[in-house]
């Protein structure tokens, strides 16, 4: 782990709407000693707009980036955005499998891609390469009230033949990571349900309905916060929450954080550093209730004592806690 160097491909979303995802991933990587370097002159990954038109073209867009990374002498690229991830994995899969496809793709490229780079999601890098023990070790803060529904989205680990990571129907990697940093994780049945994704523009109603379902299932599971790993999911659940409330008559008010932001909180980073200010549904209550480990330890001891003197102190506590 120590000497492995990753290429880090943030992708276009993380330059714009999801800049806080980028910020928090970099902070976490730094905190955990993940050695990464951003390739120069990276370009579009070739996701949705391209691959709905032409598969060779889409693969070429992906391969262009992979080729740059290959030339850097690296064999693994860490990718936070699932859409980029799948674009890379798909290009890799079909170019490896099909010589003629590879030739066609390479024809479009200035620098031929020799299929030597494997894409891993940020989640996978943290879960498999860094490991839960390291993740736990770095924890400085506790967020006692947070109950999180881990929402992976539809393509973080699907389709399995491309993703090759975690259970496609009932993934657990994010659950495990969040548990490892001391967060209570709810048993959430909608981990991989669709949020509506890019249909936010053409079919707003549908997206609202689907996202509403995800949120309501999270709440039903007892969550007061949703953790995500995808810029689009985040956008649909957070940005559209008000819209959802209006169109479906619901009254949701649940913060939707990138799992890396939650990790950042546990690692003691400030809300500003983590870009929490960009959230539509505020997560301030968690920031406020956040305690250092020491504080939390003290509090626990207090509570222990408190329990012993429970009967005596009951009244006073009620007064103090309006």
């Amino acid at each position, binding site marked *: 782990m120590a000497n492995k160097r990753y290429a880090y491909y943030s992708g276009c979303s993380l330059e714009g709407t999801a800049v806080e995802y980028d910020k928090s991933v970099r902070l976490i990587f730094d905190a955990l000693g993940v050695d990464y370097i951003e390739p120069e002159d990276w370009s579009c990954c070739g996701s949705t707009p391209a691959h709905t038109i032409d598969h060779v073209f889409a693969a070429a867009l992906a391969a262009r980036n992979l080729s740059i990374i290959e030339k850097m002498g690296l064999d693994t690229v860490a990718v936070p955005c699932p859409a980029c991830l799948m674009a890379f994995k798909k290009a890799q899969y079909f170019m490896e499998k099909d010589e003629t496809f590879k030739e066609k793709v390479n024809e479009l490229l200035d620098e031929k891609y020799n299929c030597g780079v494997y894409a891993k999601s940020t989640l996978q890098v943290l879960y498999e390469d860094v490991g839960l023990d390291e993740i736990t070790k770095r924890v400085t803060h506790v967020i006692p009230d947070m109950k999180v529904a881990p929402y992976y989205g539809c393509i973080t680990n699907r389709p399995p033949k491309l993703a090759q990571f975690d259970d*496609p*129907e*009932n993934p657990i990697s994010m659950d495990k990571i969040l548990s490892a940093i001391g967060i209570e994780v709810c048993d959430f*049945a*909608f981990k991989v*349900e669709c949020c509506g994704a890019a249909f936010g523009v053409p079919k707003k109603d549908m997206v609202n309905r689907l996202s509403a379902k995800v949120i309501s*299932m999270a709440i039903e599971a007892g969550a007061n916060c949703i953790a995500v790993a995808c810029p689009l999911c985040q956008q649909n659940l957070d940005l559209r929450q008000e819209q959802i409330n209006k169109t479906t008559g619901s009254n949701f008010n649940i913060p939707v954080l990138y799992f890396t932001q939650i990790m950042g909180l546990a690692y003691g980073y400030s809300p500003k550093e983590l870009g929490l200010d960009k959230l539509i549904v505020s997560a301030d209550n968690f920031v406020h209730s956040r305690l250092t480990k020491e504080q939390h330890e003290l509090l626990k001891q207090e509570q222990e004592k408190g329990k012993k003197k429970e009967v005596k102190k009951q009244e006073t506590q009620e007064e103090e806690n309006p």
Partner: protein
Amino acid sequence: MRVGVFICHCGNNIAGTVDVKAVAEAIRKIPGVAYATTYMYTCSEPGQDEIKQAIKDHNLNRIVVAACSPRMHELTFRKTVEKAGLNRYYFEMANIREHISWIGEDKEANTKKAIDVVKMAVAKVMQDRPLYSSSFRINKRVLVIGGGVAGMQAALDCADGGLEVVLVEKSPSIGGMMSRLDKTFPTIDCSICILGPKMVDVAQHDKIKLYAYSEIDEIKGYVGNYQIKIRKKATYVDWTKCTGCGACMEKCPSRNAYDYFNFGVAPTKAINIPFPQAIPKKAKIDPNYCRHFTKGKCGVCAKICPTKAINYEMQDEIVTEEVGAIIVATGYSLLDLEKLPEYGGGRYPDVISGIQYERLLNASGPTAGHILRPSDHIEPKTIVFVSCAGSRDKSIGIPYCSNFCCMYIAKQAILTKDHIPDSQSYVFYMDIRSPGKGYDEFTRRAQEDYGVKYIRGRVSRIYPKGKKMVVKGVDTLLGSQVEIEADLVVLGTAVLSNPDAAHLAEKLHISYDTFGFYVESHPKLRPVETNTSGVFLAGACQGPKDIPASVGQGSAAASKVLALFSKDMLESDPAVAKVDINKCIGCLKCVRTCPFQAIKDKELRDGRIVADVIETVCAGCGVCTSTCPCGAIQLQHFTDNQLLAEVNALCLA
């Protein structure tokens, strides 16, 4: 050499894309071919008569038929030439249908190819030598592997026909899957009530020797003379003493053993008799759960047993049986619920399989016939059945239909209504497949008389919501999404071959398909034979099958064995390896490589050592022939010269 060549039109099957007349004309020019003609259907009776007549009229002494695959009709035509007085091995077939007319569109290229292929067959037939069978005695006992309904039927029919039968069942009781069923469609007969008497017949038949809780270790030999090693697995109970009283089971303190019979619907005891009607009705200890084995103490059963039948020291025992034929009736298994993660299989206790539901319905099952859902033992009111749970799903490698799920789901829905009158059942289905006598009426009854709601569409996800399971799917007839909040979900899980089917096939030298189902000799005309003579198939080991089909196949396989055993002697296949002792240098490399130990060394009068083939053991694979450096051992009918003649006819001409 006077070769006669018959080119078959096969109606339009061949003549449609091969110019058969041109083929005959080209072949007629070959020196040694005295006669070449075409015929509409050579395999028909007049077609065969034509061959016989031509042999007489033109004094032919070698015959080539260019038609379909030799796997189809080689035997037919061998008999024809034999009837005309030629040795049956003076015959070759050229496959111009499966290998030419059906796969090539260019008539000119096809015709050219057909000429080549017939030419090769002519070249080979000129190298053919007459071969003569020798006969050998057969052991008229039959081994039946698997004591489900198909195996039992086969065993009973054979035994009633006077044959001695060895029946090997791997679980502690015969009865198979059928013994687990509550009722049978479409008559709603009580399954065990009709199966029980058959089981008793098997147990009491003096011609049937039953090995329960036993497996096949090794199979050696060939049709007529097999040696079978059977492993009697340790039960830790001396079955000669056990009376099946059940006292041990009652007192056993280990209550959490997995109940194989009930598919884990509820736990059972570490010492148990699988079900009340079990045959043999004997107790058996599961050492994975028994405290004596796991913790080293206990011994309650040994103390309580009135006949002192418990023996913790018992070991597996190997017994040998000799038989002349084998019927394979090893049945099927079911897709593991965990393979269906989108349905929460294995994660949610209230998503169960059809066979588990069968046990919930059954009066002697763990719930005594009350439908109680596993999570909280509450009677469900809304029950959703999902058919094709895994079946017809390429994405998990099961493209085939599991045959009987549509029917048992209808049955279970009907029974549900009988058990819980105020319940509502839903069935998600792709197509309703009910092509049997009274079957379609039965599924209609479920819908019309019992109010079962059938929804045509697939289920995409099942997830829990409070105490309910939400079944999310699509109704393709209405074109809308549906979500049903159910109390219990029953999955009609896909039928699979047995997990060790391939393993047994290797021992039997029979083939199996991609899915582990055994391959029959011909899908239409030889449905219970295999390509290994003396081995027959019955029941679902060949493919998913319902009870009447399995029983039918059991009887069919039995009749095949009875026909085989109607003679005292069998003729050996003369196409076996033969040693030229003048050439053999006695290096015995053939002895090393023969897969059947069919070659031994032999000392000649002058002291030279040569190889010697045991004809009845030789299976005719030819590994020895390709091993022998000096060509001294030749597989008859596939000698080096015969194959070289084909190579040369193609390459040198």
